[in-house]
């Protein structure tokens, strides 16, 4: 084949597109904030905004490793069930195994990590596609939660237990600090470390990543384990906030989390996405829920909009990608 040398005119460079999506989103976010503040003058108070932050933590914690997972082209549908399982085991091991509460908390975190690890193991070793494996574990983990709890809930935790869920630290809700730390760690990891670079490589061309000597299977195992662990952490925060553990906790989380990540600019097909985008997506979804609440739409109905947002943002991202003429 004789080659015609290419003209060197191609100027568009991958990170720029990313930047554009996030800045667009951030702009929309600011506009939405202003509008909501206008509609309800108690909205833009520090108090209210911080309270919003409190409510987003549970989804936010899980959205961070989910960003990693989706960037590699995978998905984890079992996170909601893992939250339920960890919440139940936290209460159960404390009440029925007589674990001291700190141990029970550690135990439930461990279970979360183990649940994620199982996902990762089967996905990398048996090579079951992530979608299918996590649908199966979505069923299994929820089933285990229901079986263990027998529909009993656990209450009556000591005072200190409610700190993370309900109290403030330096004037900011305690769980928000946790989320903030998690955001910074994930963001830095994704942006600046070899780990993050490996994730993007896997999402864009897993074969080439392997052929370059990158530890693809090990990294995948890590992100699914992290996903489970963060679900456990989220469960802890959730139980602390609502003071009780029930087996139906976390139902529907996967929708919120995936919508957050996709809205934040990560492509469902992999290879693209940032933590900062996910954070903006998180804020937008929370704002959306608030906006709906202000117009009288009750809690449950907001998932209608979230579902629509999920489909629409995938549609937009996919047609944008096609117009760029993906390489």
């Amino acid at each position, binding site marked *: 084949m004789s080659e015609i040398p290419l003209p060197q005119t191609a100027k568009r460079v991958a990170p720029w597109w990313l930047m554009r999506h996030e800045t667009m989103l951030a702009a929309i976010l600011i506009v939405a904030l202003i509008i909501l503040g206008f509609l309800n003058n108690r909205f833009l108070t520090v108090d209210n905004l911080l309270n919003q932050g409190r409510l987003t933590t549970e989804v936010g914690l899980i959205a961070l490793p989910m960003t990693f997972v989706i960037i590699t082209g995978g998905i984890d549908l079992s996170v909601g069930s893992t939250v339920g399982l960890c919440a139940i085991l936290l209460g159960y091991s404390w009440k029925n195994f007589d674990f001291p509460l700190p141990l029970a908390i550690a135990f439930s975190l461990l279970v979360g990590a183990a649940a994620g690890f199982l996902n990762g193991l089967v996905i990398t070793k048996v090579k079951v596609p992530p979608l299918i494996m996590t649908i199966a574990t979505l069923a299994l983990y929820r089933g285990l939660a229901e079986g263990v709890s027998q529909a009993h809930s656990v209450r009556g935790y000591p005072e200190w237990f409610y700190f993370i869920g309900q109290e403030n630290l330096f004037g900011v809700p305690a769980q928000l600090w946790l989320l903030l730390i998690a955001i910074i760690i994930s963001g830095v990891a994704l942006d600046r470390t070899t780990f993050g670079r490996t994730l993007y490589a896997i999402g864009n061309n897993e074969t080439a990543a*392997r052929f370059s000597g990158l530890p693809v299977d090990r990294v995948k195992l890590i992100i699914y384990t992290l996903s489970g662990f963060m679900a456990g952490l989220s469960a802890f925060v959730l139980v602390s906030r609502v003071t009780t553990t029930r087996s139906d906790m976390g139902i529907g989380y996967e929708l919120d989390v995936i919508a957050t990540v996709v809205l934040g600019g990560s492509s469902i097909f992999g290879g693209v996405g940032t933590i900062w985008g996910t954070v903006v997506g998180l804020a937008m979804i929370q704002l959306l829920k608030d906006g709906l609440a202000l117009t009288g739409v009750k809690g449950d109905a907001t998932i209608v909009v979230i579902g629509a947002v999920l489909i629409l943002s995938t549609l937009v991202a996919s047609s944008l990608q096609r117009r760029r003429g993906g*390489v």
Partner: protein
Amino acid sequence: MASATIASATPVLSVRNIEKSFPGVRALSGVSFDVAEGEAHALLGENGAGKSTLIKIVSGVFPPDRGEVIVDGKAVHLERPDDARRVGIATIYQELLLFPELTVAENIFMGHAPRGGFGRVDWRAMREKTKELLASLEIHDLDPDRVVGALSVGNRQRVEILRALSHEARILIMDEPTAALTEYDVRRLFDIVRKLKARGVAVIYISHKLDEIFAIADRVTVLRDGAHVATKRVAETDSAELVQLMVGRKIESLFPKITVPIGEPVLEVKDLVRRPLTKGVSLTVRAGEIVGLAGLVGSGRSELAQTIFGVTPAEGGEIKIRGKKVDIRSPGQARTLGIAYVPEDRGAQGLVRPMTVRENFSLAALGKVAFGGFIDRALERKLAGDGVKRFSVKTSSLEQVAGKLSGGNQQKIVLGKWLANQPKLLILDEPTRGIDVGAKAEIHRLMGELAAQGLAILMISSELPEVLGMSDRVLVMREGRIVAEFTREQATQEAAGAAMMGGQGVEQAA
């Protein structure tokens, strides 16, 4: 055997002045040839000569930029593979397009199953018709009710051929049909081809394997660099002439070979085994040495490289790196041992095309630009910048998306990313495939420099002139084993070609 006469009637298939270009590459420039009814016509050419592009045009995968496809004297417009099928052209690709969970009979008749009452699918008629097809090609060991996924490759290929027949194909195109077949299956394939010819079906047979072409084809068309070079009657030519037509370049002028002192063995492989294609390979590569590995497509060279590199770890045998026995289980491990592998398919295996030049340059050497896991962007930019300069990569900036560069520049990035690791052993798999002459010369010059710096280089190539011009020693691989070794002085195209094809060749039936 070659058939006695080619009828001088209207050819069943004719292509005229076909031109096709892709961004950055002119794949076909003005190719014409024709095929007669009942003829077995071989299509020969190196990798990148344009054979598969031509076949895709005839199969309706995409249209040509210019030129015509003519069937039975009438020009046809093929926009979809379905169109080609309807005018009687059937293609069997290397990756067989079958339904693994469905039966042989259903695979054959999917889309045009025989119907019974109420328009329902008539399974019994389907089975009967399948048996008729089987009988017409004298295949007696294929059960119409067996699930295709459980069949051997040879059997699956036969199912594809039967499917083509069921659509009353008049032109059957086979793309490297014997690449994955056993000798027994190859003989059976030839049997089938002869029967097809007797029925008036024209067979276009793409192959590298000269001995097969001489066994089965009536005429052969040679393509080179996207152009038609010659069409010859098989009876009127020989392998030496075909090789010359395929390659047709002067060797000397292209390859600046410097004599370099050869040092200690860096790679020693003994009786390496890995199913299915590596059957006991032994070789040695020394520091400063360039060892060329020649062989036909399917001889197992890339598989060998990938076993040494840890992508498909060895199942038997021994590998020694700089005298020490090692068990290489992953590419990461190979990299730590100082091995670098520039793969055959740079788009799918070598480069992450959506990522930038900078990111691709550091991909195999992230450890070198990172401290405690944190990537130092400045260091990374320096690494990439140095690489771009050293290898003369033509790019508008380090942040350019790698996939938009030309093939030659992409290849330089893949090479460069591995050299950042300062490897001791460099395995190159078809390093200059699909690259223009200028970039080719640059890469060859680089190879010489690297050898002079003490790197051990194992070069896999299907371009004999390149192998002969660059190597200190030439190894020839066939069917998973090393069958010949030549020093630089001893190696000639004829000797290497003969070893590649094998002395006996496939039996020629009467």
